[in-house]
Structure formats: C-alpha cells, structure tokens
C-alpha cells in the first residue's frame, strides 16, 4: 500500500478528548493521520479542506462534536454542511468525494471514533493515489 497522508481537523472539545481516551486505552492513531487542532469544526472553511488536498493530502477528515451537543452550539452542523459541499465539488471535478469525510464523536466513544478513522483510511488506500503530491505550493 502506497503511503497515504490524511489531514484530520480535530475540534478541541469532544473530538480531542475522545482521541486522548482512545490513546490511553492503548489504541493509537493510524500513522497517516496528521492532527490539526481547531477550536471548533465550525471554524473550518471549504478552501482550507481543498488546499490541504492541494498541498499533498490524499484525504481530509473533519472530527467534531455530535450535532446538537456541539460545544459551540452550531459548529459541527455547519462543518458537515461544508464537507458535503466539498464532496459535491469534488464529484463535479471528477475526483472521488470519499476523500473528504465528516465524523462526529462524543468524548466517550473513543474506540468507535478510531474504528471510523481506520475505515476512512482503508477507503482512501483503495483509491488511486493523486498524480500531484504537493505540486501546488
């Protein structure tokens, strides 16, 4: 399997504590995942997801609180909307929409979150690797 590279935008609240809990339980994050901490997934803009693909990521995963339990009320809901928008855009330009994913997690569901992240990694690994790797600066 060619080495893939995932940018994970992680919200500082439930998502991060879920990751920490999983790590204490001996369940470690896949190597390909790079964590970028943000105060809330609602902070994230569509361009930032696109650009991280442009700068060489094979996929982007946005991890936020459960909707309606978002620490900042609406953040994760907005984020999901933007992820869907990017999915459409990628489909539109004949790229695989699976490259972008939104995952909601509660602080207590660390194991489940890890499962989802690995599934996402698996999906990405199956996709053909992008011709450009960091071609765009």
């Amino acid at each position, binding site marked *: 399997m060619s080495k893939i590279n995932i940018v994970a935008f992680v919200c500082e609240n439930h998502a991060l504590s879920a990751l920490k809990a999983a790590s204490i339980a001996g369940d470690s994050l896949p190597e390909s995942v790079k964590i970028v901490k943000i105060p809330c997934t609602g902070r994230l*803009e*569509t*361009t930032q997801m*696109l*650009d991280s*693909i*442009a700068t060489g990521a094979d996929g982007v995963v946005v991890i936020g609180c459960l909707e309606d339990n978002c620490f900042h009320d609406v953040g994760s809901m907005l984020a999901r909307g933007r992820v869907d928008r990017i999915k459409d*855009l990628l489909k*539109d*330009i*004949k*790229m695989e929409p699976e490259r972008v994913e939104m995952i909601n997690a509660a602080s207590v569901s660390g194991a489940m979150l890890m499962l989802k992240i690995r599934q996402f990694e698996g999906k990405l690994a199956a996709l053909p690797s*992008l*011709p*450009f790797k960091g*071609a*765009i600066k």
Partner: protein
Amino acid sequence: MIIGERKPVSEIAKMLAGKKKILISGCKTCVAISMAGGEKEVAELASALRLMSARDGLDWDIEENVVERQCEKEWVREIESKILGADCVVSLACGLGCQTIGDLYPEKQAYPGLNTSFLGVPEEQGVWSEKCLACGDCIIFETGGICPVSRCAKSMRNGACGGSADGKCEVNLDTDCAWYMIYERLKLQNRLDLITQVCAPKDWAKSHSGGRRKIVRKDLLIQPTDRTDMEVKK
C-alpha cells in the same frame, strides 16, 4: 439584492480550455452577501481549478481578485492591468458585472462564473427567495405589499388560481400561494375590499417584453443623450 449561484466547476473549466493566465474576479456587493461570488467563493473556485490543473497538467496560472462593485466601470477600471494581463476573466459577479468587464475590454473574453438567479431577499441564514421580477410596473400597493407577479407561479393578477390548496401553491407544495398570503395580509390591514375589485391588466410594455429597457434621466446627463450608451447605435 441580486441572488446568484456558482456554476458547476466542470462547466467553468470547459470555458477555460486552452487558456493559461486566468483572472477570477468576484464582486463585494450583492453576490458576496448571497454567498455566491464574494472573496470566499473566489478563493474556493480558485483552489478547485488549481486542483484540476495540477491533476490534468493544464498549468493554469490563476489569479484571485475582488471588485467593490463590478457593475460600475470606475471600479472595474481599478483592476485594468490585471484584466489586460490575463488571457481571460472568470467573473463571479452577476451578469451585469461580467458584461461590464466585457464591454470595457471587448478584446478580452469575460466568462460568467455564476448564474444570476433572481432578485431576492435573504430569508434566513442560507435561504434566499425571489420577491421581484423587475416587471417595470409595480402593483403591490393593491396587493397588500406582496408581489403576485414574482411570488405566484402563474403571475396571477386577479386572485388565486384553481390550484391553490390550504395556502400552498400547486406548482410546488413547499411554496405558499401568493394570493392566499395577499388575502391574509389584506385581512390584517382591513382592506379586504381591495380583493373584490377587478384589476385592469398590467402594463407589460414596461416589462422585458418590450425589449431591452433603458432609463435616461435628462436632469442627470452631463452629455447629449446619443453618446450616453457605449455601444454603437442601430
């Protein structure tokens, strides 16, 4: 304000076939507020196109830019050098903005990056709805301030059609029947007598059916009429 919607990127890409230097120009006025052609959308489109060009080796050189009001010559002239420097311009402004660039620099190709959808209002965050057709002959003083021309699917003039059922329009059950709303509004204003009067036909000559419309205010002219328009007179 003018509500727009970005064209599919693939469609835009088709226009740009064989181009090298591309200027994407947004507008900070209506389309920015309707989240279709502002600075953000320009950036989004740019990064999408960059992705495409990198993937297909098109080596597009893409420049981003936003104009205060793209429908005004003075503002557009501000970025003259950028426009002249590029092979073509993708305008994320409304049809007016795109044409202004086209008219100012006829030799340059200005492509519309978005579809100018309608004249509407922001209902809530992320929802815009049409409320005016610019028909040129406003009659909402008779209809309790609700425009049946734009808000009724059939532009009915004298009350609801047969398809109106419990306040909803038969064309699309999600939209309210304009004439039902008019009735409610008039009832609220105790002007229900208005609804009983038969209205005379509207003066459609003032609408688009009369061909391209133009308003000339003599009192504002600083030069004779015949040279106000940029294009050659027929």
